[in-house]
């Protein structure tokens, strides 16, 4: 896309993820994150030409204009499950590329009740029996896809504990993380079984929080930000025939690739980079197994190579391919609408050298983010410093 208008990130902000006071609304957290991102960019709401907001359950984001200021700008609402943040970012970036805006704000927020998500069958095109008889539960899918993946690629259950232990180690270094207590692999393996092979600490929990990003046309970014981060690609895909997806009463015997494979490939192509260029990555880790298979689906490693990478500590902040450096969904929980923007914020902080105790070494110049969600959607970004 050499002729396309380049888009950069000039500010990031968040309201910490976790459990907050009952009276603190998702939308209020969204407003906090917007304030933080605008302050980071040194801009005000009235400087924004365009806005996109994502929330799955906590209200219509565009109503925030009542608090932020009625400047009359276009404000698009996005509700794309766990991929909401990525889709919101893509929508705003495309508005800049289309010449509709020079500076745009993207926000995501959610406030979920405790416990696993419960989905309405009708919302996903299924009949009531599917949920009433005890199928159609997201955690079952994660356990079953994980078990099948470990079986097909000769991985041991221990990798699930290794991923979770890394997430909580990273969370302990992140002042904004929800879960900041390290847990040993033994404690994780011995914890309450939720859906075997996954235990309590191998699952992320629905939580609360918000994140926001300020985008600018790249020719303006240098004036707005000391170290702008280029949004080299942002892509989104839905599932194709044969991929094993959440809420699937049946599968064809012929295996197909997941939307994560398609979205990641498209992102690297558009960025003109390859997966091995990535120096820091945030992957959808709804559960430990998801991080494992998403490492390969996004092209960051080959199928079955995860064991060696984990054994060598290569996905830790000190390794060759740091993954989920802020603790990921496992240590931050998942406010669905905000999660993808949390990933983008983390990569921006890492590329700018502002990630504090969890800063990866080697001055990374290429970062990657990936979200995946029901009913088979994925969004990916490739983020680079201006030197790339």
């Amino acid at each position, binding site marked *: 896309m050499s002729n396309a208008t380049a888009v950069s990130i000039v500010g990031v902000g968040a309201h910490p993820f976790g459990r907050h006071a009952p009276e603190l609304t998702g939308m209020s957290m969204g407003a906090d994150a917007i304030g933080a991102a605008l302050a980071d960019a040194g801009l005000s709401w009235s400087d924004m030409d365009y806005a996109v907001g994502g929330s799955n359950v906590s209200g219509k984001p565009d109503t925030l204009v009542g608090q932020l200021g009625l400047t009359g700008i276009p404000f698009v609402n996005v509700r794309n499950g766990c991929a909401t943040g990525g889709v919101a970012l893509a929508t705003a970036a495309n508005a800049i590329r289309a010449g509709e805006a020079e500076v745009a704000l993207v926000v995501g927020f959610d406030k979920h009740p405790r*416990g*696993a998500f*419960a989905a*309405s*069958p009708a919302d996903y095109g299924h*009949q*009531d*029996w599917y*949920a*009433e*008889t*005890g*199928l159609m*539960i997201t955690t*079952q899918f994660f*356990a*079953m*896809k994980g*078990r*099948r993946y470990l*079986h097909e690629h000769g991985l041991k259950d221990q990798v699930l504990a290794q991923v979770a232990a890394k997430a909580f180690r990273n969370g302990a270094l992140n002042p904004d993380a929800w879960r900041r207590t390290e847990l040993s692999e033994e404690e994780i393996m011995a914890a*309450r*079984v*939720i*859906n*075997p*092979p*996954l235990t309590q600490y191998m699952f992320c929990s629905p939580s609360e929080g918000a994140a926001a990003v300020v985008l600018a046309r790249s020719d303006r970014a240098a004036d707005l930000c000391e170290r702008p981060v280029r949004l080299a690609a942002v892509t989104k895909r839905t599932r194709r*025939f044969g991929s094993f997806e959440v809420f*699937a*009463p*049946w*599968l*064809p*015997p012929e295996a197909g690739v997941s939307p994560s494979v398609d979205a990641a490939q498209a992102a690297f192509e558009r960025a003109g980079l390859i997966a091995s260029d990535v120096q820091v990555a945030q992957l959808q880790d709804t559960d430990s197994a998801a991080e494992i298979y998403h490492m390969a689906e996004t092209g960051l490693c080959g199928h079955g190579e995860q064991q060696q990478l984990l054994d060598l500590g290569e996905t830790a902040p000190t390794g060759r391919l740091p993954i989920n450096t802020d603790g990921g969904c496992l240590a931050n929980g998942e406010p669905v609408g905000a999660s993808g923007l949390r990933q983008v914020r983390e990569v921006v902080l890492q590329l700018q050298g502002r990630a504090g105790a969890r800063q990866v070494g080697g001055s990374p110049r290429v970062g990657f983010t990936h979200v995946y969600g029901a009913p088979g959607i994925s969004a990916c970004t490739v983020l680079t410093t201006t030197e790339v």
Partner: protein
Amino acid sequence: MTTVGVEPGLFASLEPPRLAGSRCARCATVTFPAQRGCPKCAASDMVPVELADHGTLWTWTVQAFEPKAPYRAPATGFEPYAVGYVDLGDVIVEARLTGDPAGLEIGMPMSLTLLPVWDGVDGSTVVTYAFAAEVASPGGAR
């Protein structure tokens, strides 16, 4: 006491239990439940097909916590239960699994059965489909 399927369209018959799917007349893709259009080739010529009643376990887990509504717990209260996908050859079907999960293994032979889930308002027994691990009889025959 009568037995009724939780969703009549799922079953080609209840005695013996058989599942009702659909097969694309153009590309032979088999779906379950039956649907009107083919998700692979987008043709709209799906014909009813009865699915195999034996297969192999493709993956599985146990539902260890009680799901939120719209799940309906049995009248006797929630007990953990196994779920899985069973490869029937031309389609892989998600299902409840009956019996002790302790012995479940990917690749093991499974056969179709019925699982009572709740009582109907008219006193009937409402059943869903499920798969059970096949146990070799002492004589060796299935």
